[in-house]
């Protein structure tokens, strides 16, 4: 079926299978392989993207349900995202980097809604993104730091 959607500011019209997850549409059809799929069943958070500004799991989101939606992935541009990238670098908020695109998207969603989150709010908002390398401390500090940094 035809799906029209905007991804990182670009408009696409794709022919997607009804059962196809958004993650497959992004990775296989649009070659946006930054979004990672570590479990494919809603249990890790690595596939997190923003759909109409909400952080969702692209492995469980049907591409067909994204008709008319605006999607943002780790490949997106933006000042806040750049600030997060800088903070993740400076605070060592990643190791292997496989969970990182999802971490960045959850962080972005948090800071867009809550520009100055409390430490508890950061923990809550980021607790749906597993990191097996255990980069959590750097991640939490980086999100706090990106929130403080001047735009």
């Amino acid at each position: 079926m035809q799906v029209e959607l905007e991804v990182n500011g670009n408009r696409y019209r794709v022919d997607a299978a009804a059962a196809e997850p958004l993650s497959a549409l992004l990775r296989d059809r649009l070659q946006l392989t930054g979004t990672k799929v570590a479990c494919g069943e809603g249990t890790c958070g690595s596939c997190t993207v923003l759909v109409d500004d909400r952080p969702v799991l692209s492995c469980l989101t049907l591409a067909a349900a994204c008709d008319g939606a605006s999607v943002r992935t780790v490949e997106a541009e933006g000042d806040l995202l750049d600030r997060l990238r800088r903070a993740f670098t400076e605070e060592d908020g990643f190791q292997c980097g496989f969970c990182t695109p999802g971490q960045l998207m959850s962080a972005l969603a948090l800071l867009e809604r809550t520009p100055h989150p409390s430490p508890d709010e950061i923990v809550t908002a980021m607790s749906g993104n597993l990191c097996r390398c255990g980069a959590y401390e750097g991640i939490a500090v980086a999100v706090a730091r990106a929130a403080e940094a001047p735009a």
Partner: protein
Amino acid sequence: MARLIKTEAVVEGRTEVRWTLVEEDSTPEWPADQPPGVVGEPTTRLTAGARLSGSARYTSDMQLPRQLEATVLRSPHANARLTSISLDAARAVPGVRAVIGPGDCPQFDGEAVLHDEPPYGGAAVAAIAAETREAADEAMAALDPQWEPLGFVVDLDQSLENQTFQDDPVEYERGDAETALAAAELTITSDYLAPAQLHNSMEPHCAVADWRPDGLTLWSSTQGIYQARSQLCGSFGLDQEHVRVICHFMGGGFGSKFGCGPEGVIAAELSRRAGRPVRLVLSRRDENLSTGYRTPARFSFTIGAGCDGRLQAVEASAVMGLGTGGWAYPVLEPVKSVYACEHQHLMTLPMRLNLGPAAAFRAPGVMEGTWAFEQALDELAEAAGLDPLELRRRNHTDVDPSTGRPYTSKRLLESYDLAAELAGWDARDELRSDGRVRRGMGCASQYWWGGGGPPAYADVRIGSDAKPVLTVGMQDLGTGVTTACAVVLAERLGIRPDQVTVRTGDTDLAGHGPFSGGSMTLASVAPAVRSAGHHVRTQLLELAADMFEIAASDLELTEGEVRSTDGTLRRPIHDVTEKLGNAWVTGSGSRAPNPDGMAVNTFGCQIAQVAVDTLTGLITVERVVAVHDIGRVVNPMGARSQVLGGILQGIGFALSEERVVDPTTGTVVNAGLEDYKIPTLADLPEVECRFVGEPDPELALGIKGLGEPPIIPTPGAIGNAVAHALGLRLREAPYTPRRVLEALQ
């Protein structure tokens, strides 16, 4: 001049003797008094740009033109015989390009890859390559396999009863334990049961194979590109020149990804048959059924000591569940090698079970052995009426107790003191209370190998732009080795690490190198990098000497400049390199062996503070003090991250991670990340991390290594802290709410 030498290396507890090629090395050591520039400064990761923009291509991201998708049929039974399968029906499905069954696939490391008698639930039986995942799924349904279920054993005790060993039992004896135990003033006996911990690297095992008439290229998520290459050569009878293995970015391995894995062989065979590139990415479930785990183990200790707490004798056994692969990981090493104790009798029994093969998992054997033995020691401390740290101090040893060899360096006593001070150890009893939430503090020692060794090679070239390119035969799992190598090179060339480009992860780029594991990578490659950098430095200085008519010995490279020691000349390095035009200055280096006759080990101590909620049964690790002696710290930022990562995996082992096998069907019931719980951000404790070691005087660059040490003492320290908090000991990990509440019942 290169020469071939024989060296000894300890890899995850196994001593290997090997021949290696090393270059004569004239690089001067770093002067002891002068800190070597950028080395030891916090440095952010070189890979940040790629990893944070989504542009880093992991193996599972590869999309070659005309690439096919592969899926694997796996056995649903704990043990079965395949009685029929319709490979042709699958081949007839539109879009299917290759189908292979048992007998169609070469072996992997001498073992069957596709089984006609799959010995565990999740064992591979057939594989399909198709144009789309949907076509592959449809073909999978068409295979219609028929099974004859066979008897199975998934229980450790039953396997012991049947005496079915997967690897040879290991017996170790020194002194006369039996007599010494009978004579000991104090004896305690205790048992512990460690769970199977699943690696769950975020990137599953995966491979993309491109088989062409002129050779095979395999992108693999691997910790060992060279090992992968030799395995593929072995499986397919190819020469090294015709196999190229690439791993530019990988999403974690933790010991489960040495070599190309069966997935590499399957992808290559499918690609060979289809004449097209093939991508095979394991599902999370298949990952957890078939790619390895830390072995579950039942420990029994009988410890004899004097009233002063000095160890006299230990009898210990460990029954490990290896499943259908792996080897006898050194689970009793912490008994054998950490403390002075004259009489020991240790038995390790590696059992076969109808479960997937075990694999090394960050400090395999040693972590779970430390978890058990360090708790038994606390039981002894209690029996002797001693402070647990004092007991450990009293049993300190200055030589390796099993070989009598001296250590190249050992700062364990210092680690105890510093950890105790940082943790507030002396006031630990004040934490305790009778309320709903009970707090406690516990410690554990850390012991591991390290030090690295040959083979490791590096090449450096620098051109007119003064930005060196460093090529190292290795792969970066995400541990930050790449960045550390850039730091080491930057020091020699007087530039910033971010001006270095590091090329890794391609067997066609560099001759050979170590796999990433055993805490060996950096200690192995860094000296090679430095020596290669030194050659380039020498040539640049000679060039500068000619240009500026100052003796090379009076010149140095610092802060991006060529400077004369008298301060009269300061010119950007670029002024020298631009004269090169399109030429390069190149240098190469290799790793020299470690001194013979000495024990190379890392040491440390962790102290954990926990809070046990007696209502919910949930345990919070509030604080961990981690003090480790790892020799020289090249990049403190990366080192701290390694420590945090180890501690978190240790917390998972202690509190929530456990593979559960159904006793009646013999299949794993929690092969996904919902019921197999790894820690989240909300489980992160406050961590105080210190490194006590100075550069090891006997080792190249003084580096010992850090990958495994931080995970080793964490679970034991937590176990001891929980016992301190509750006044009773949980003998089985993980300490889930259920086990806590059952213990409190």
